[in-house]
């Protein structure tokens, strides 16, 4: 069983012979990751930080050093981390505020949709993913080597159409790219080993990737990490393709496909109150209630 919480990960590393300095590095990475993906959840409603810890735990269990474990905790920093883009995020809160009279469920659904549209909007995509300011922040905190690995993780295209080339060229990868591919493999195992993929609202789409690319991923695991990770992936893929979950535990198809942000209610509603004040200045007669 792989760790899913900070406590389990630290206990695993302590038992695994990592030094105190290693643990300090991992703790620092955890603190930053927990802040960046705070309130973010996966499409199956599992907290995002549990996924990051799971990837780190798999990496550690397969012999990765402390730096790679730290990268595993930070691997989604640029894709899903909230570095405080500020006003851009607030656009979505305006929408949530304007939809205030709707039912809670409708508001939540539309709020998530708007957030995902905004996040996917091309002019903001680069800003959302990697910006010099974000890179500088991670470089300051963890040094250039760790940040470069996180950056390359973000840059790598792990798509069905790119996997064959990755398999063919795996022998020529440099050490950083090998580490990145290893983390993608750990990421794959983390998403499948406990059946988490099956609870997604759109699990069929995700299972299609496993069906189409599973063999390539397993082959890549053999090349990059050795037979143990490859065997675990093969077993996880074989099992997940035949397993099913009770309908009552699956999410409604309206739910977000990949991951979504669910800030604390007081933060969301306070933001609404502030916007109301702004509107009062802009649009005379806006009710304060």
């Amino acid at each position: 069983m792989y760790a899913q919480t900070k406590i389990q990960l630290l206990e695993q590393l302590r038992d695994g012979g990592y030094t105190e300095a290693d643990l300090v590095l991992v703790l620092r990475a955890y603190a930053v990751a927990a802040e960046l993906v705070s309130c973010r959840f996966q499409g199956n409603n599992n907290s995002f930080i549990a996924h990051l810890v799971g990837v780190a735990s798999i990496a550690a269990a397969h012999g990765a050093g402390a730096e790679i474990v730290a990268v595993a905790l930070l691997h989604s920093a640029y894709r899903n981390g909230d570095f405080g883009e500020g006003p851009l995020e607030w656009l979505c809160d305006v929408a949530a505020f304007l939809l205030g009279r709707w039912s809670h469920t409708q508001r939540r659904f539309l709020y998530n949709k708007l957030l995902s549209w905004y996040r996917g909007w091309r002019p903001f995509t680069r800003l959302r993913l990697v910006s010099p300011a974000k890179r500088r922040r991670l470089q300051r905190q963890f040094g250039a080597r760790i940040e470069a690995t996180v950056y390359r993780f973000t840059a790598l295209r792990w798509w069905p159409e790119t996997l064959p080339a990755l398999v063919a060229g795996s022998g020529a990868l440099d050490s950083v790219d090998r580490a990145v591919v290893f983390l993608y493999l750990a990421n794959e195992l983390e998403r499948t080993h406990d059946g988490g993929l099956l609870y997604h609202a759109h699990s069929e789409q995700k299972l299609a990737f496993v069906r189409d690319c599973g063999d390539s991923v397993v082959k890549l695991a053999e090349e990059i990490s050795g037979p143990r990770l490859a065997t675990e992936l093969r077993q996880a893929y074989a099992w997940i393709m035949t397993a099913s979950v009770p309908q009552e535990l699956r999410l409604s198809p309206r739910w977000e496909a990949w991951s979504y942000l669910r800030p604390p209610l007081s933060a969301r509603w306070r933001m609404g109150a502030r916007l109301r004040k702004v509107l009062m200045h802009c649009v005379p007669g806006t009710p304060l209630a």
Partner: protein
Amino acid sequence: MAEQICGKGPEGVIAQTNIQLYNQLPRDGYRGPALAQIRRAYELALEIFAGRCQPSGKCFLSHVVGTASVLSSLGQSADVVAAGLLHNVYHNGDFGDGSTGATPAKRIWVQRAVGPVTEEIVYRFAVKDWSHEALRAHGSNLEPLEDVDRQVLMVFLANELERFADGGIFYQRDCAGRLRFVSQLREVSVRMAEALGVPQLAEALRAAFRQATEREISSPVLRMARTTPGSYVCAPRSFRMGCRT
């Protein structure tokens, strides 16, 4: 026929994520509406505990899932398992109104989500006195208690087990104080579990408490890992203005 997911997952281990809990529930015999109710409780917990962490830095949702997992493995009703997911909702939950404690509006919200039976357990958990003295006064004399109060005690004991079972107690700043509390109450808790008719819970509590008192707590890493004396909210940076912590 496709293999059911039951049987896969960390058997004998306390679940820490909704996925692990969902895998466990069918294995423990929950079906149909019971599963739906527990899922609704988790979805409410997700909303109310978003961003909240325990003093050890562990996600608060993991703690409530663990509590529910313990209750599920003890074969408690779906209402009690759902109450495990929401047990601290009135004290630690963020309902967006900035208040703590149970208010009529909050109670209605919870009742609508998970039903009045579960809400009653959660409410009594919130208003019950959990001090040393009150627990000692209870002792193992549980005869006068109503069923719902026995269920509240069950949730409390599951909550205690969850906090100690993974060693999380050592990663919080006041762990020495917490350990003193344990040493004073370990026997009472164990006797309560026995009086409730769940010897396996009594045994698990005894083992967890023993492990807790025998452990070394002076590692520098453990000291660094400890964050705050109480639970706290870490809101996303873009949403921090005025967030209740």
